[in-house]
């Protein structure tokens, strides 16, 4: 499929691909560059180059906006969700993949159906119940909600990994007298660990960026995740766009760095499901 020696055609293709890359990167560049300029300059024109970059802005908004707290909240909720999702979905994936559970087909269909249901279909009762119990702003509640939301997808992803494990391995362990739990922890988990890593990456990223649940269930500055905090701050920094962009840059940076570091694994993980499906 490659174009080989046809130089004009190759240049044309690269020009198209480059233009597409530019259109993606341009708004992101506006965010970073304008965070380094003064608000006055930003209002004059968003397109200027930061000739005297003001690096202190990051330290200033970091403490002003309590971003350290917000990022720690995001991290804690992400880690909690990843631990729960990986545990419960790998266990369920094994049982469902081996069809050892009565009604496994119904259970699979149930989890499949939950992936299509909008969050508005279950958030109202949860919200008003948690409000009655004074559990709004509770990170534990949010971790449980995220766990339920991300379990079906990781279950189906891990199920594919379980199916690749030959039954003989499990049976050999059983003949040696291993219990279900032992077979699971000593045979299954090590073999599906690449899948678990993919699940962890995707869940982490999605929890960090999640909007609807976090702005609804985490409403004060102390409990807010980074994205919820950013949303709270858009009003306050409404007329200081340079600072707002600095906050945006700080919150976007961890996920972007994380993604660039693990991009190969990430892209493989994300496309594996769709390509196989």
């Amino acid at each position, binding site marked *: *499929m490659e174009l080989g020696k046809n130089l004009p055609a190759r240049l044309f293709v690269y020009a198209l691909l480059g233009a597409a890359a530019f259109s993606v990167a341009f708004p992101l560049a506006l965010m970073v560059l304008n965070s380094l300029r003064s608000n006055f300059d930003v209002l004059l024109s968003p397109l200027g180059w930061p000739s005297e970059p003001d690096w202190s802005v990051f330290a200033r908004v970091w403490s002003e906006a309590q971003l350290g707290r917000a990022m720690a909240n995001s991290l804690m909720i992400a880690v909690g969700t990843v631990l729960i999702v990986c545990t419960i979905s790998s266990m369920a994936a094994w049982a469902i993949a081996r069809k050892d559970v009565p009604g496994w087909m119904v259970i699979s269909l149930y989890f499949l159906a939950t992936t299509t249901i909008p969050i508005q279909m279950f958030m109202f009762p949860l919200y008003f119940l948690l409000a009655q119990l004074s559990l709004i702003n509770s990170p534990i509640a949010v971790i*449980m909600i995220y766990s*339920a939301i991300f379990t079906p997808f990781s279950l189906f992803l891990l199920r594919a990994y379980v199916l690749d494990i030959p039954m003989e391995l499990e049976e050999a362990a059983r003949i040696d007298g291993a219990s279900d739990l032992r077979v699971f922890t000593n045979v299954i988990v090590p073999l599906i660990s690449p899948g678990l890593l993919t699940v962890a990456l995707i869940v982490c990223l999605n929890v960090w960026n999640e909007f609807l649940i976090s702005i609804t269930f985490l409403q004060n500055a102390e409990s807010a995740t980074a994205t919820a905090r950013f949303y709270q701050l858009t009003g306050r920094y409404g007329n200081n766009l340079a600072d707002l962009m600095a906050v945006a840059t700080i919150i976007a940076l961890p996920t972007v760095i994380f993604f660039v570091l693990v991009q190969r694994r990430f892209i493989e993980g994300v496309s594996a499901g769709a390509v196989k499906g």
Partner: protein
Amino acid sequence: MTDQSTSASLALPASAGLPGRRVRARRKKPASRKWLFVLPALLVSLCVVLIPVITTTLLAFTDWNGFSMPRWVGLSNFVAIMQEARFWQAFQNNCIYTFLFATVPMIGSLFAAVLLMTVRKGRTFFQVVYFLPVTIATVILAQIWRSMIFSPTSGVVGWLQSVGIPVDNPLVSPDTSLLGVLFVDMWSWWGYLTVIYFAALRQVDRSLIEAALVDGASRWQTFRHILLPTILPTVMFMLLMSIIWSFKVFDWIYVLTAGGPGFSSEVLATLAYKTAFQSFEVGRASAYSLSMSLVGLVAIVIYLRLQARREKA
């Protein structure tokens, strides 16, 4: 976009048959306790999703402000929303949004993925750049577009106006607000599709492609008769996911226009949310949610039917 990057394989096994007799006989252990392994996942899902979904369904038949006792009102919420202009406006907006979101990026991304196939150097670089928006929170991307690009005072639009180019902020006009939001959503999303299509295209047997080209097939014929049929399952799957996800769109609308001006960019997700948390009419909000869920279910049923037929064939 919560689940935009969570495209796990939803393919269910073709044969749903019972475990064969041989398998059962071979296994010495009598009663399997494997159901215990499904229990935690089921319990979490039951508490967070199933019970609240049933509750929401029941609430749709009540009048409830979230705090007092719900009052049973039968079908009157549904009768009321059917007579609302904003419900139909939101429903129509959802349909337009989903139709364009499912078609335009698909064509653009397929084209981009095929272009990537034709080059040797820079594939990874382009994929990483195209994928970047997916890794950043929608609320941040939406805010960049709102204040740095669309804003007439601080954005690129304002700068273009100042040099005499007649452009306008699409978000403040009822005619263009929905399309403005849709544009930003598609901007953040097409790269993800491109990466997935590219991964699918790379699975295609290279020798097939080369044989076709040697035999004098044009590039278009090669794409149409060799590449496209092979990646069709991926395309169909992503089409289904695009329909399901975009029908649930909330973040982009809520941050960019909050449904305005008027109800010009309102969708069912924002309408339900605002009705529940701003006017505290939870019964009516549940009725909106319910009508929104039915569409997703219909889409998945159609997909499963199609897949079952394909596996039979």
